[in-house]
């Protein structure tokens, strides 16, 4: 087997002679003219053995041996000292004490050089195999520790090299790696199922809470109270409630300068534009038609998320959104929604509502994660109150505590609490399951709106609504929350 040998000799004649002798034996040879150059080349290239002269100006052979002995990377490279035995016996003894494995007289015979080189190289190859084996055992032990310590990712185990071994250690690594991979895939699948279930439940709860808003809106309209004034007070209640819940949860509104842009845009989109647009459009377009148009929000989130690469689009997710939309549309048309002759212009304007909600859903993916969800909503609601209150006062649509009595106060309280909690839940769903999945809140919100109407306004819940609910659930399953990324870690419970 060809080996790579470093010849160290200050005499270029002696170095050339040794190098040519080494090459004649079928090995590769490189030359270094002093101790310093030898150490530099040893640090840069891999050598299987060193033929080292002792007497050299500058760093001599002893110095090279001492430096190699104290360097873990070099201490395993065997050194044969090349010496004139007739007058340097003491030198050879000292060199061997410093770590040289053998010596060679300067006037060596080729068979002697060959025999010593082969013996040294055989020992080196055996040592290299031993070191590789120990290193691989060490890596397997480390991989076992990672699994034992708790959560792991297959890439963390770093035993791919060990599994390429052809011996039993390699087989052990393959089995170990396969089992770890199997557990990881299973855990990831289980996590996805759990996320779907958790996401579905949260979307239903958020929709159920948010769905009460239209019913409360209709109740407010019946009391002839200006909607904008109600919104200003409801947002204030939401802000106070969310701050309160946030403080109880241990959060503090640690707003940094870099967060200001996010909060301002979010407050404008959801707290101002959406609220004002809802109030304005609701007076021109039938509520059921607004709900129907609002259900397209899922598709808008899907398109926006794909456009700005927040989430990966897929046909299955699009199909899931389509099923939900068909189900909700069937209910709304079944109820006679859309029968009123709303003007095309206002119907077009109504598309602004789901678009604003879609932007709001995407915005939620960029929320500052270090701020508690309720605190985040509280800040946004407070900001939108500050923005809307002057508009309400200027347009003479602001209401004051005396107006409407206790019934209006109760509506404002419930509306504020429902809005705050539902948006905080939506924040959580976006973080957990992604914006596209959270976009389906539109469906659960519409269906819940019908249910709340039945409860609060004695409306009749049609049978088709129940069928639609089932279809919406099927849609949830098809849309699936965003998958866990490479950061997902699996856990194998190990008894001690």
């Amino acid at each position: 087997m060809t080996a790579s040998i470093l010849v160290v000799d200050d005499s270029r004649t002696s170095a050339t002679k040794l190098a040519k002798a080494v090459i004649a034996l079928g090995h590769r040879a490189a030359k270094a003219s002093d101790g310093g150059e030898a150490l530099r080349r040893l640090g840069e290239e891999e050598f299987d053995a060193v033929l080292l002269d002792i007497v050299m100006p500058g760093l001599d052979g002893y110095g090279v041996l001492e430096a190699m002995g104290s360097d873990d990377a070099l201490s395993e490279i065997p050194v044969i000292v090349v010496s004139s035995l007739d007058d340097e016996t003491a030198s050879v003894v000292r060199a061997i004490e410093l770590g040289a494995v053998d010596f060679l007289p300067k006037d060596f015979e080729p068979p002697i050089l060959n025999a010593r080189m082969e013996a040294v190289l055989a020992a080196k190859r055996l040592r290299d195999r031993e070191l590789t084996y120990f290193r691989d055992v060490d890596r397997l032990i480390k991989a076992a520790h990672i699994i034992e310590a708790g959560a792991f990712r297959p890439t963390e185990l770093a035993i791919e090299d060990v599994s390429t071994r052809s011996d039993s250690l390699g087989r052990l690594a393959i089995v170990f790696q396969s089992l770890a991979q199997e557990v990881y895939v299973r855990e990831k699948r289980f996590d996805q199922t759990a996320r779907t279930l958790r996401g579905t439940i949260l979307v239903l709860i958020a929709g159920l809470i948010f769905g009460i808003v239209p019913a409360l809106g209709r109740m407010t309209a019946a009391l002839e109270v200006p909607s904008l004034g109600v919104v200003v007070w409801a947002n204030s209640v939401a802000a106070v409630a969310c701050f309160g819940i946030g403080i109880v949860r241990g959060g503090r509104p640690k707003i940094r300068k870099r967060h200001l842009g996010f909060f301002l845009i979010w407050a404008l989109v959801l707290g101002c534009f959406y609220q004002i647009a809802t109030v304005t459009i609701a007076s021109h377009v039938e509520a059921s038609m607004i709900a129907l148009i609002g259900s397209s929000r899922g598709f808008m989130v899907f398109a926006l998320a794909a456009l700005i690469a927040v989430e990966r689009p897929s046909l299955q997710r699009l199909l899931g959104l389509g099923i939900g939309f068909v189900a909700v549309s069937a209910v709304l048309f079944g109820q006679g929604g859309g029968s009123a002759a709303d003007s095309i212009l206002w119907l077009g304007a109504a598309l602004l509502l789901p678009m604003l909600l879609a932007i709001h859903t995407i915005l939620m993916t960029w929320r500052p994660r270090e701020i508690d969800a309720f605190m985040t909503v509280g800040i946004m609601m407070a900001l939108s109150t500050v923005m809307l209150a002057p508009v309400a006062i200027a347009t003479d649509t602001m209401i004051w505590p005396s107006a409407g009595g206790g019934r209006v106060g109760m509506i404002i309280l419930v509306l504020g609490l429902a809005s705050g909690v539902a948006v905080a839940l939506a924040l959580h769903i976006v973080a957990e399951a992604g914006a596209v999945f959270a976009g389906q809140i539109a469906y659960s919100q519409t269906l819940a709106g019908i249910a709340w109407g039945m409860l609060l306004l004695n409306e009749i819940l049609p049978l088709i609504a129940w069928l639609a609910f089932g279809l919406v659930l099927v849609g949830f399953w098809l849309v699936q929350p965003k998958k866990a990324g490479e950061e997902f870690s699996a856990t194998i419970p190990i008894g001690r």
Partner: protein
Amino acid sequence: MNASVIDIDALRRLLAVIGGDTEDLDELLRDFQSEAPELVDRMQLASRLGDIDALRIAAHTLKSNARDFGAVELSALCATMEQECRDNRGSEHGEKVDEIAVQMALAVQELSKLVEVGLNASGATD
């Protein structure tokens, strides 16, 4: 060939050590012919400066190289010089270095002839 200056058997051994290629031996001879005068210059300088260690190292190197090329007398003179330096004996090294210089010139001259006529003609590859 001056048998007292170059030992042809030593050259044969050297040729065997490097694998039997005469071109490689030619290359080695050229190395020796250029390095040996440098080593003698170094010895002369060290002798003038009284740098015993440098003198010893140069003598040691020339001793080994001369032995490889069969320059027996030169190698012996260098060995004596190295030993004296090691034992710190002898205060006047200049004359001995001059003697080494003469022997080195003779050896280089003889080896040049070998390069010119070729080793086959001189019987080194018999």
